């Protein structure tokens, strides 16, 4: 863990404007998932978060969300920030000796001020308790409905400054909830908050996949009494079938430039991997085997595709050029290795490995071929990396109910996203979006 040494000068507060538009709803009414944290990182950075000036009267307080985000990462712990009168809101108010004696390496201070247009100015500074300098400082303009997102963005900045890795607290996840005979495709914040149904159906929905720019989701819907691949815009809600050939159509995976999808089709017999345009069109065949070839996943550089195949007798993970061509087998431990997904840096992949009757999340490094099993559930499925590569989100089962869990890529920190109803499955973690 390294502090990023380059501190911003005291007065330099960058403005990051969040313009208000459209209709909003209160996210608190929609909370569907709550998070339990199991385990912590080897070394945790102690941080004090002082409640922001004037946030007390807000329906959505900012600092509790920042704190919950940072704690959830497992690599940051909170230092008691209470009992100071008056609490510091500006750098000149800080008595650094007090914070050092409380064990804080860094201090988050800030304020919320209502504007005449009904929105709020939110500003914060991250201060280094040892060097007594500012590490980051930003100002935001946010509507009441955007305060939670603003808090996630502040947590992203704090996390990145303290760990060197991008924060992913303001990213989103997609997953499927099954309740009775009903299937809902839902999009939520990375902390499970603010879940919204983007597609409801009485037939199954599986394999959602984010477009690289986070604006569209590809998925498999059975609403036509067979698996068909759709792409749906989150901006407009418009959707269209992009692979609806004779037979089954499934397992969509976006090319990194967002122009194409690798899909699995059975139109020529068996289950084989093809490319189609992100808007549909002709399918170009990539694999030619008499075995099952499925679960394609593009490498981040777009040059290769990982997939599951039973061409060697048992399901194993293979890699081939993105234009097709000779695949090479990449998993060798065990008789069942499936559901490969690249890490964001392309140096490793996560997958499901069966050992005995258990199915667990594992990662494998491409260079060393070293496998690390990260989970110990009985029926873990569908692993998906956080866009900073630090966590893997997956589906598991607890007492017969489907839930989502996340595990840090070193296996030390585990989180459980507990749903208030139904079976939750098929998660996919959305991309980091440019600010």
């Amino acid at each position, binding site marked *: 863990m390294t502090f990023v040494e380059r501190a911003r000068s005291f007065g330099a507060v960058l403005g990051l404007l969040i313009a208000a538009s459209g*209709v909003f709803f209160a996210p608190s009414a929609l909370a569907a998932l709550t998070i339990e944290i199991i385990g912590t990182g080897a070394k945790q950075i102690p941080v004090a978060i002082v409640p922001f000036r004037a946030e007390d009267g807000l329906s959505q307080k900012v600092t509790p969300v920042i704190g919950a985000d940072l704690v959830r990462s497992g690599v940051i712990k909170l230092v008691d920030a209470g009992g100071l009168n008056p609490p510091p809101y500006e750098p000149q108010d800080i008595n650094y000796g007090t914070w050092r004696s409380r064990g804080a390496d860094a201090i988050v201070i800030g304020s919320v001020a209502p504007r005449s247009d009904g929105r709020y100015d939110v500003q914060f500074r991250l201060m280094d308790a040892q060097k007594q300098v500012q590490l980051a400082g930003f100002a935001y303009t946010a509507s009441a*409905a955007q305060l939670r997102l603003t808090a996630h963005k502040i947590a992203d900045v704090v996390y990145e400054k303290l760990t060197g890795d991008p924060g992913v607290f303001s990213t989103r996840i997609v997953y499927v909830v099954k309740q009775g005979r009903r299937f809902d495709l839902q999009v939520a914040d990375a902390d499970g908050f603010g879940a919204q149904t983007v597609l409801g159906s009485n037939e199954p929905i599986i394999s959602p996949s984010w477009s690289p720019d986070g604006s569209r989701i590809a998925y498999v819907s059975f*609403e*036509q009494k067979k*698996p068909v691949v759709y792409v749906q815009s*989150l901006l407009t809600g418009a959707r269209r079938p992009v692979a609806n050939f004779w037979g*089954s159509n499934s397992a969509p995976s976006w090319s990194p430039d967002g122009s194409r999808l690798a899909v699995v089709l059975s139109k020529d017999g068996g289950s084989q991997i093809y490319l189609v345009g992100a808007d549909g069109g002709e399918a170009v065949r990539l694999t030619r085997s008499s075995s099952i070839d499925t679960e394609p996943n593009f490498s981040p550089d777009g040059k290769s595709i990982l997939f599951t195949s039973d061409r060697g007798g048992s399901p194993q993970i293979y890699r081939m050029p993105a234009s097709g061509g000779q695949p090479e087998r990449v998993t060798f431990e065990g008789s069942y290795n*499936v559901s490969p997904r690249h890490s964001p840096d392309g140096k490793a992949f996560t997958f499901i490995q*069966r050992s005995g009757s258990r199915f667990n999340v594992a990662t494998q490094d491409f260079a060393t071929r070293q496998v690390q099993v990260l989970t110990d559930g009985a029926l873990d*499925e569908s692993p998906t990396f956080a866009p900073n590569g630090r966590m893997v989100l997956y589906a598991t089962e607890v007492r017969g109910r489907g839930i989502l869990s996340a595990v840090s890529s070193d296996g030390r920190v585990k989180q459980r996203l507990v749903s208030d109803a139904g079976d939750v499955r098929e998660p996919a973690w959305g991309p980091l979006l440019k600010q």
Partner: protein
Amino acid sequence: MKRFRFGLLGLNIVILAALAACSSAPTKEQSGAAVEDRKPGGPPTVVDRPPVVPVDPATTRPLSPDQIGSAALRDPKNILSKRSIFFDYDSNLVKDEYKPIVAAHARYLQQNGGTKMRVEGNADDRGSREYNLALGQRRADAVRQMMQLLGAKPDQVETVSFGEEKPRCNEAAESCWSQNRRGDIVYQGE
């Protein structure tokens, strides 16, 4: 959707189909799946991330009802009313006990050249959903291949897979899993 050409036996089918149409209104299962528009509290927009908008209701086309086949297909005493072929674990081999069922349907297709069906493959729920979808597809393909060998035309049988998504039984036990490893025969219009 292509119109069906009636073969020599077409007239019979038309009559039987008409009788069938008189005697039974379409059941709920025959209609397409409803895909609903859900708006949890209004359209959301968060400015610096793409907003999420629920989709409009999708229209689904029910399969054409003009080919509801012979009453034989629904006569419980007729082998054609048997529609499920069960498989062993990790196998797509059609077992001897199910071959007469596949053969009877192949014969029916051969005799009714305008009739079409889907074979829906299924798998038990252990492991990857997409891999299980492919396993179900392989089972459906095995049934189709046998039907073709016995005289059905390639375009009469579409094979699709539901993978582990449509379990007939929901417990974690072999007695249950074995019911989920199956291929189901569904005629067009049913």
